[in-house]
Each structure stands twice: as C-alpha cells, then as structure tokens.
C-alpha cells in the first residue's frame, strides 16, 4: 500500500513538489550559468533561490506529514487498515521520488552537460543527496511528526530558533553560536560534521519509530530535544578521537614513518622569543607536511604542565611555499599574556612540549597547460575538472570541479629555458573520504602574474599545475631542553 498512499499524497501535493523542484533547478542552472570566471560567490538571485528552495522543501515535508498527522485521536487514518510502516515508507518515498529525485536528475544532467563523466557525477550526486536525506529530510519528517497541523509545526520551529538564540546569548553572548570545536577549520572537520549528522539521523529515526509505531508524542518530543542538544554539542568532540579516526582512514598508512620532527638547538635559533625552533627531516620526495593541530605547553622539572597555549590551530603563512612544513618558517610560535609571563618567569627549568597532529601530503598529478590568448579556453584536466585559462596581466586558471584539489601549486614555466615564475598556492585541507559532490566553481583558482606579455612570448611558456593529496596522518611529540623565559623577556 506504500505506492497507494504515495499516490494520494502526490494528488494533493504535486504542485508544491513541482514548485520546490523548480526553485532548486533554478539555483542549479544559475550556478551553471556563472562558468569559470563568474563570481565565485553566488549572486543574490541565486542565493535567494537556494534559500527559497530550502524553505519550500521543509514546508512541503511538513505538509506531507500533516496529511496524516500523528498526534491527536481524531485522525481518520488511525481507524483504517493502514500499516504504520507503509505510511512511514510512503512519506519517505515521497521525499525521495517527488522532491529529491528530480533535483538529483537536474544536477546530474547539469554536470553531465559540463563534461563530467556520468559515473562520477551520479555517485557524487547520490552521495550528496543521500547525506541530505539522512541529515535533513529525515529530521524534517521527524520534526513535523511531533506536531499537529502546519501552524503548530511552524510555531514550534520558530520556538526552536528562538530557544537557540536565547541559548546563544546565555552561553556565548551572541545569537548565532555554532559551537567552535577543535576540528573546526581543519581537514578533520568532516568527522564532527558526520557525527553531528549521524546524531540528527539517529534522533530522527528514533522519533519516527516512536511516532509511527507507538504514537508517543510527548516522549518523542523529549527524545527529539535530547538528540538535538547532543547534535549541537558534537562539534566539541575531542581532537584526539577525531584525528585517531582520520589516522585509521589514511590512504597510505605508514608512509610518514620516516618523518622526524626535532628541536633545532642551534644557538641563534633557541633565543627567539615565543617561538620554538623545529626542523623536519625524512620527508619522501615531492612531499610536505601539513600541521593540522599543535599543542604547545610548558612543563616544570617534574613534568607537570604549568601552562598550555589555548590556541592549538597552526599559524599558517599562506605566502610560504610548500617547504617541509606548510606555511611554517621553522619556528613554532605561541603567545602568552603578560601575567603569565610574570608568573612563569619566576620558574626555572621549564620545558616546552609540542604535540603535533600532522598530515603528509604527496604529489598527486602534474598538468602542463598551454597559455596565451589563442590557447585560452576549455579543457578537461582529469581528476580536477573542466578548466579554463585567461591570459592578461595575470594568467589565471579557474576550474569547475566536483571535488576541488585539496592543495595545489602552480607556476609558469618556460618551455625552452625551464625558467619558473614564483609559484602560487591554493590549499584547503579537507580529508573527507567520501566521493565527489555536485560540480562547483573551484573557489580560488590560481593566478600568476605574467605582466601582459605578448602572445609570441607568452606562448613559449606553460602553466604548470601540481596537485597534492594527503597520504598519511600521524602524530609527533617534541620536548625541548630547559628554557628560561627571562631570556625571552629580556630579548623583547
């Protein structure tokens, strides 16, 4: 009877489903319209379409559930021979077939038209839609099942938003307060994201089971509130757990075993204030290390921690090349306020301890792309996407990718002499192990100054793009010999 119930809902809601799909299609097509060299940020109309499609989708799901509401005792379906499982599955089927499948088809067709292989396009889009169903569609169904009528559901949604804002003011002094956890802005952020979405999914599954099989609305509301609170707390998951999981998923485990980090004890380096000199050795060819997280602490002679740097995200100098450590000039900086300095200066025989979480990146692919106005245009770079160059004062490469390279470097190379321009870098570590996504413009692209060289000259050059991929995730710990903070203070 699943299909039969689906048809009844379709009869009532087809035009709303059509409106949501139209809005979503509009946003996909508007994105496709921008091309490589359009704005990387979506224009207002596209943003508006995305927001409208999102809200209309949530409204549609609410309407869908409210065709056969759960709370209350007067609904006709309760006394009909309708299997509860059929009813729930019919609602899920509607979300999949009437709402998500058309959007998926449009996205696949758009990517296919952009020249991406159908296989990767389908898998990427399917993964994305599945994730959206589990972490958004299902929770929306579950939320709507807790209330009777559209008005009550919308009022409850507003109440949740207001409660979040009030909670934000109480906890952090501002209304918008996504909790910032240790994985935030690191390549491991996906672990917290997946954990959060899993909690939403599990909560939704529990609520839907309670509602459709037992109709325990009051209890289900408490369960929903508990799961929601838990999901909001997942960004605070410990770094060690997230990174340990990432280590288990390393593409080439053990490839970083030869990498050694050591304290640089040369006299001219050790007296630098608030900076621990570090050297790295044992790197395989064409590889470098990314610092995902570093914890600097000071320990006393007995090994007890007397101070810990509250900031554990690495400081990255984006202008630095991919030398041994990305964005690192061989010195691990940390900051300390004056009260701490005064307190700790009185202590002798302090040791600095550095706990590193690191990722070894290796060369993945190298592409040589012709430049010059006659060569500007479309080309497909395997494993990157569909790219185009534009030659002017700068030679710029922009791509539409399904999954942008995590890190890349580019320079202009003279085909005859082998001369190179200084390189440009783009690096946004993201170690998510899943497949691709729907296509999008590679945000930054890469631009190299060429100073308007005329075509006969510039065509002798080529645009070299090198992409890097993570190979291994590993940890290292360093402990310095005794340091004296008074030396640093006097040197300031």
């Amino acid at each position: 009877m699943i299909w039969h119930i689906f048809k009844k809902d379709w009869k009532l809601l087809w035009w709303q489903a059509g409106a949501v799909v139209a809005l979503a299609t509009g946003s996909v097509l508007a994105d496709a319209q921008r091309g490589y060299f359009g704005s990387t940020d979506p224009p207002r109309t596209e943003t508006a379409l995305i927001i409208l499609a999102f809200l209309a989708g949530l409204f549609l799901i609410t309407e869908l559930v409210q065709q056969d509401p759960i709370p209350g005792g007067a609904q006709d379906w309760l006394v009909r021979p309708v299997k509860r499982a059929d009813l729930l599955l019919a609602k899920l089927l509607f979300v999949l077939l009437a709402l998500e499948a058309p959007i998926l088809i449009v996205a696949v067709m758009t990517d296919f038209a952009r020249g991406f292989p159908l296989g990767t396009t389908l898998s990427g889009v399917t993964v994305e839609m599945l994730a959206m169903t589990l972490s958004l569609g299902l929770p929306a169904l579950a939320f709507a099942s807790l209330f009777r009528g559209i008005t009550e559901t919308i009022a409850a949604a507003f109440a949740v938003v207001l409660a979040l804002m009030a909670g934000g003011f109480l906890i952090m002094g501002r209304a918008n307060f996504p909790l910032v956890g240790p994985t935030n802005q690191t390549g491991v952020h996906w672990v917290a994201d997946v954990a959060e979405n899993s909690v939403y999914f599990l909560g939704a599954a529990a609520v839907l089971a309670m509602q459709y099989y037992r109709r325990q609305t009051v209890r289900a509301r408490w369960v929903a509130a508990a799961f929601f609170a838990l999901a909001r707390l997942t960004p605070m998951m410990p770094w060690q757990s997230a990174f340990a999981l990432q280590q288990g998923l390393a593409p080439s485990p053990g490839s970083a075993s030869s990498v050694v980090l050591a304290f640089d004890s040369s006299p001219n380096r050790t007296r630098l204030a608030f900076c621990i000199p570090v050297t790295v050795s044992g790197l395989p060819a064409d590889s470098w290390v990314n610092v995902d997280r570093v914890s600097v602490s000071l320990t006393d002679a007995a090994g007890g921690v007397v101070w810990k740097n509250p900031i554990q995200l690495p400081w990255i100098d984006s202008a630095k090349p991919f030398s041994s450590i990305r964005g690192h000039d061989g010195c691990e900086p940390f900051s300390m306020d004056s009260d701490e300095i005064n307190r700790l200066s009185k202590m002798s025989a302090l040791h600095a301890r550095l706990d590193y979480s690191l990722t070894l990146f290796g060369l993945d692919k190298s592409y040589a792309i012709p430049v010059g106005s006659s060569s500007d245009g479309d080309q497909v770079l395997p494993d990157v996407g569909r790219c185009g160059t534009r030659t002017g004062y700068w030679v710029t490469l922009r791509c539409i990718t399904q999954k942008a390279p995590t890190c890349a470097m580019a320079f202009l190379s003279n085909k005859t002499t082998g001369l190179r321009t200084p390189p440009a870098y783009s690096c946004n570590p993201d170690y998510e192990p899943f497949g691709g996504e729907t296509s999008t413009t590679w945000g930054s692209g890469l631009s190299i100054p060429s100073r308007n060289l005329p075509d006969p000259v510039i065509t002798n050059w080529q645009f070299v793009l090198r992409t890097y991929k993570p190979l291994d995730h590993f940890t290292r710990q360093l402990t310095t010999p005794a340091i004296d903070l008074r030396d640093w203070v006097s040197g300031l």
Partner: protein
Amino acid sequence: MIQVRDLWKKFGRHEALRGLSLNVSEGSAYALIGANGAGKTTTIRTLVNIEEPTSGSVTIMGVDSRRISPRELSYIGYVSESQELPARLTVQDYLAYLRPFYPTWDRDLESALRAQLRVPRNWRIGHLSHGMRIKMLLLCALPYRPKLLILDEPFSGLDPLVREELMQSLLSQAGETTILISTHELGEIEGMATHVAFIDQGRLLFEQSTSDLMERFREVRITFESEVRPPETPADWLDVRSAGSSMTFVDSQFSDSTFGERVGALLTGVRRVETEPMSLRSIFIALARSARESRSE
C-alpha cells in the same frame, strides 16, 4: 465481540475511565450512554487503539486492543463526529483511496449508499457541511460490510432529516453487523439498541438488554388521600418529587408482580397508583439526574 475488563485510563492526573467493564456480544446493537465527559469517547478510542489503556484489558474481535492490526481494522467500521478527514480530497478521491484497504469492499453497495445518502461525489471533503460529513463517514464505513460498526456520537448536531437518513442507512445495511453506538440522541436508537450501558464519570453504572431495562423502569405517580409529608423512599426510586397529595418517582426495579405489595408496605393513605412505561430518553435523564444528585451529596 468486545470484552472490556477493569479498564482504567488516566490523562495526567485526570481519571477518564475508572475500572470500566463491558461485554458486547456478537450481533447486538449496544448503546453506550452517559453525560458529557462520562468517558464514552475515551472507551471507544481505547477499543480501536487510538488510546492505550492505563490498566485493564480490552479485547476486540478476539484481539487485545493494543495488538489490533490492519487485518482487524478492515472488519471494523468507525464513525465519529470529531473524525478528521483529508479536507482537500474530493469524496470520490477519498473513496478510491480507501477501497484497496478493504478486501471486502462492495462497489455496488457503495453506489447504492451514495445514492441513498446523497453525498456529492465531486465536492472536496473540506467543503462538506457537518451533516454531509457524517454521511460521508458512514459512506466510508459501510461498503465493506464491517463485522463491527462503532459509532461515536454520530447524530450530534444533525437536523432531524439527516438523522432519519442516517438511521435508515444504518438499519438497511447493518445486517449481521455488531453495532456499538455512543449517543445522547436516545430517541433515535430506541428501536435499534438491543443493549444499553450507562457510564458515569468513567464507571459503568449498569449494562442490560434494552427490553429488560424498559421492563424494570417505570414512571410512577401516586395520589394520596390527603396532603402528606414526603416519606422515606428506597434507593431504587429515583427522582422522587412530591406536591400536595401526589408523589412522582421513577422506579428503577419495577416488577409487575411485587410493585403493589411494595407500595402498600412503604406508603399509607394511597388513593391511586399510576405507572407508565418510560422511553430510553426518560430513563437516561432520570439516571443522569440521580447520578448527579448522588455526587453532589
């Protein structure tokens, strides 16, 4: 068909049902009567597992109400004045939606009923009047010839003509169907109900066949020789009133053979005794008034 044993239902601190026990036998037309808030709707909702019992047991068609499955529901017709239907569907769309759920759905019977009840096919359910909606519910409950038909206040708020149409449809199609009906409109069911149960404040006051009930209730008027003080009367004489030299009451344990003897033993100076059979409605009013008075005491 239905057995209810020591049924309790609490909503928070409020006890809607307090140890209710009922027995509806197959083929009967069982009327559940009681004042507003007596627990009739809660009882009915518990039967079909819309509400779960706090304690006690409910068996319907041999199955624990908590385990009632679509199989049993496909043999149960349900009509309630508060039933919510999908307002945006048309009558014919909703009938088309319901048909596949009932293996025994008879389309000819559906057509006959639709003609009899004069329910417009192409109207949206949300546009139907209250009376038309109740007729629509009946139209959705009868075509599969349910073994059990549950009617919760079906006549509430209906004009006499619609009531008559409903009753005619019920009587013509009921056949072997067991009927459980809760209603205030006792006049409508007087000729139909085979059994009556009276509920007050979640408790069963009595359960009896209608013929026995009508037999044991009499409206009595006694005229005395002279003006008398109201005498002490037995508890089964309800709604006792006296004015001047006459007294009226409802005898709830009337027996032709013993009544005269009883009156003679309890009262003196009796000049004339008149007894009248009572309608179900009058019995209900007498019982409800008596229950209310005993609560206020």
